[in-house]
Each structure stands twice: as C-alpha cells, then as structure tokens.
C-alpha cells in the first residue's frame, strides 16, 4: 500500500467508513455511546497498526500510552481547573509522546521476546502506579467526576452521547488523515522497508533504531489521545485502561481486521466490540471461548484478517498497482 509505486489518491471505497459512521448516528441513536467506544478503539488500533503493521514491532504494552492519556485527561478534569477538552487532549498527547520517546529510545534496541517483555513490564508498572497512587488516580475505584467543558463552548456532552460521538468522529478523522499521510509518504515507505528487510535498510544507510523511535513516539501520541477521549466521553477513568488486557484487546482487534492494511483498524474494533457487547454481557464464558477460537482460526487460516478474506472474495476492493505489497 505504501511506497514509491503506490497510488496515493483516495479511492471511493475509503469514504465508506465515514458514510457508515454518519448513517449510524442517524439510524441508531440509542447506541451512540457504544459507537463512541468503537471510534475510540479504532483510533487506538490505528496507532498500533503504525508500529505493528508497518514497522513490524510486536508489543503487548501499548495500553501504557492509552492509559497514560486516559489518566492525564482524567486528572486534569477532576483535580485541576483545566477542563477545556482540547487542552486535555493536548496534554494527554504530549505526555504520551514523552513516555513514547523515553521508553522507545530505551527498549527499541532490543528485539523479539525481550522487547515484548519490556513493553509488558512498562504497562504493568504503570498499572501498579495507578493502583497505588490513589490520591491522583482514585486507585481501584477509578477517577470519577472528570469535568469536561462543552466543545468550542457550544456542544455539551449530553446524556445521549451525541456530542461525544461527533467529537470522537472528528478526532478520529484527523488521526486517520495523519496516518494515511504518513503511510503514503517516503517515511512510510521507509518503515515498510524496515519491516520487510531491516538488514537491507541498514545497508542503505538508514539509522533504523532512530526511525523506529520516531514512529513509536507518533504511535504513542495517538494512543494517548485515544485514551483521553475515552475519559472525556465517560467522564471517568478506571484501572482497566492499563495493563495486559487493553493491549491484548486492541491487538486482537487489529488482527481480526487485518494488520498493515489501514482499514483493518476500522473493521476489527467494530466487529470485536459489537460482538462483545451482544454476547459478553449475558454469556461471558462464551464470549472468551468464541473470540479465542476465532483468533486461533484467524492465525492458522486467515492471517490477513477480515480484510484479507475480503480481498479474496471481492477483488474490486483491492488498492491499485502495488496490491502485492500489502496482500499478506
């Protein structure tokens, strides 16, 4: 999809998700908070796709940034007087970026299991901190009463979640546009190069380590923004934004949708959250059973996720000439 031979123009199929989102708003007004949650996780999944799908970094610790962003927005809204939503977002993004560059610089010198372990350890540490620092985070009870001002002074967060939905949609749109730009740029081509053959990239003079730190930081910033959105929409943040679980969840979502395909990050969360919402409340065991079995199936037989399957059945959805580069 990326690279010098790719066609960067937006295809008509790429507008479908946005059309669908707007249709959702009008057709299913009772499910807007679920919709907002889906949008947030799409943003989170996009951030993961940047490093997993394009740069090839396997991490189970992405929730560290998500959680940091969530708690930043939460702390600002609950403890300080900073309640402007955009300021909260900016602060969350900034702190996540800082954590991203700090941890990335340190751990990206390692690879494979060591890297995986380090990402896990980092998010575990943050979870511990959140757990113990009750004055700031509310500990196991979570932080409630997070105040968020009306957006642009006009749109209050209403009970039906209308504002929340559009707010998340707008932020997601910006995020999507940024990610798309990056993917098609020379930087994106270079990332693909690192993923495809990092030895070769070294041999053409790319300081691979620093490039990985760059994309890791960008990804962290996005994940933190997604976390902040979650807090703002719920006006609450709890411990479940940190640790292994959200990392695992978003990873599964991305695989379901299709890694390295940009829109896998859209489809995955939709499917996952919708199914989870319908099944998990009533039959939690069956939810885990189902998703586990599905995951195993995908790994063994349908590595490209849902998008990969669609590729085989509906060829007109395939992107232009260098489709081969992305078909995995």
């Amino acid at each position, binding site marked *: 999809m*990326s*690279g*010098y*031979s*790719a*066609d*960067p123009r937006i295809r008509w199929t790429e507008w479908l998700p946005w059309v669908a989102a707007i249709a959702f708003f009008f057709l299913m007004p009772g499910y807007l908070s679920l919709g907002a949650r889906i949008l947030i996780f799409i943003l989170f999944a996009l951030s993961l796709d940047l490093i997993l799908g394009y740069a090839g970094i396997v991490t189970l610790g992405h929730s560290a940034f998500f959680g940091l962003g969530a708690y930043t927005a939460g702390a600002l809204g609950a403890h300080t007087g900073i309640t402007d939503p955009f300021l909260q977002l900016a602060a969350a993004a900034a702190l996540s970026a800082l954590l991203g560059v700090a941890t990335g610089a340190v751990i990206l010198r390692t690879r494979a299991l060591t890297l995986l372990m380090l990402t896990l350890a980092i998010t575990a540490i943050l979870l511990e901190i959140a757990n113990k620092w009750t004055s700031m985070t509310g500990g196991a009870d979570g932080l409630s009463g997070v105040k968020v001002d009306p957006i642009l002074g006009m749109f209050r967060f209403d009970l039906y979640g209308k504002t929340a939905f559009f707010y998340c949609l707008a932020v997601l749109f910006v995020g999507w546009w940024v990610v798309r*730009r*990056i993917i*098609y*740029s*020379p*930087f*994106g*081509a*270079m990332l*693909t*190069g690192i993923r*495809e*053959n990092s*030895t*070769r*990239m*070294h*041999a*053409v*003079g*790319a*300081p*691979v380590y620093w*490039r990985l730190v*760059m994309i890791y930081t960008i990804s962290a910033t996005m994940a933190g923004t997604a976390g902040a959105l979650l807090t703002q929409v719920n006006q609450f943040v709890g411990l479940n934004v940190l640790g292994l679980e959200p990392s695992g969840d978003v990873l599964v979502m991305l695989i379901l949708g299709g890694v390295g395909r940009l829109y896998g990050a859209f489809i995955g969360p939709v499917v996952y959250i919708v199914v989870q919402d319908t099944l998990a409340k009533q039959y939690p065991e069956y939810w885990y059973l189902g998703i586990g079995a599905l995951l195993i199936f995908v790994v063994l037989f349908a590595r490209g996720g849902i998008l990969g399957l669609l590729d085989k059945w509906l060829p007109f959805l395939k992107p232009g*000439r*260098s489709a*081969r*580069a992305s078909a995995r």
Partner: protein
Amino acid sequence: MAAVLETRSLCKSFGALTVADRINFRLEPGARHALIGPNGAGKTTFVNMLMGQLAPSSGQILLGGEDVTRVPQSARVRRGLGRTFQVTTLFRNLPLLDNVALGIAEREGVSVRMWKPASRHREIKDEAMTYLSALGIADEADARVADLPYGKQRLVEIAIALGLKPKVLLLDEPAAGVPSHESGIILSNLAKLPPEIAILIIEHDMDLVFRFAQRITVLVQGTVLVEAPPEEIARDKRVHQVYLGEQHA
C-alpha cells in the same frame, strides 16, 4: 594517491579462534580489486567488519582517510560505502522500483519526510529508473522482486548499491547462486559500473575474477597471503597449493 578505503592491522577473534589476523589492506580510487581465498578464509568476516556489521577486536578502518572503526553501519553508508550481499537481501515483496528508490531516498534525506506522498517524488523515481535501465531491468520496474529469476535479483542488488552513489562498493559474491547461463549478464554489468567508484569484489568464480580485477588479494585463514595483479597471482605457486589443497589444513 590517498586510499579511499584502508585497514590497518585489522584483527578479529572469537575466543580462541582468530578469523582475521592483522590485515593491512588498501583500496585506491577507481580500483577494480578482488578478494579471493578458500572457504573459511575469513572473507565475509572481513567485509562485515568493513561495513560495520561486526566490530573488530583491534585495528583500524579508514574511509576516505577518516577513522570509521567505531562508526555504525548506516553512518558509513552515508559516507559513501555500499555493498551487495552474498545471499540476496532485498525487499522481496516490493517492486523493483521501490527497492532502488528506498536507497536513493535515504541518500537524499527524503525518507524522513511525512507529508508529500512517496509516489509524487518524481526525481527519486526517475533516478531509480536510470539505474534499473543501466542494468537492463527497467521493464520489470513494477514487478515484485520475488517474482524475478535469481540472476535478475542479483542485478537489483547492484542497482540498489548504485543508487547510494557510493565511493566504495563491496560486492560480496555477485555471481553466487546464479546459473552459469545467466552469469555473463553479471559480468557485463560489472564492467559498466562507473569508473570513479572503487570496487572490491569477493568471488569464487575465477573466470569472473580474472576478467574483472586489476589487483587481487588472496586471503588464507585470516591473513593476507599475497596481493598482486592477476598475472602474477595466476603464476604464484602458493596460491595453487592453497586452492588445490596440497597444503595441509
């Protein structure tokens, strides 16, 4: 004449095993130099040290007169050192054009740009095409590397190396694994390489070596046995012994 690439007393040991023993080596600008030696002589180790993938135990490496012994690989590449790999190390799932373009983008500092789409960077694509054309594979610019026959893949290696506009080019067995009916293409393309680049070629194919090289270094068990023009090497009895195995291991 100042050497463009030089090693002084370069050594490498893995514990008790010495793989490189005080190698002194000079490469002049525009050189056509070959490094030969029996298997296990330490040729690839030497190249890996030159490139910066392997740190020497002691000794110095100089590139363009500057000490680069501690400089990482990517920095050496940016200073003008290029290589091809013995086992094809390409972006197999990407088109030929991208393979070459990635290297050019690095050189030009374009690959950190995140704004304009890559495919709109005409200059990079055009330059990539010139190298592909020079090697006669421009028609397959859109094809995936993995879909090409092995001989052509070896040419892509060379194209990428050219795209780096190196001052020194290390070719690690460019004809390795290429069926004999395709290896002529390799040789003719090697002959077309720009004369100002200093080239060091490691090869086992003696035919290729003797037709290409102006100077030959023979490496045996980590030390330089002899360095001389091809005619002298061909006459040298010790070289014969080393290759025909009359000398005990």
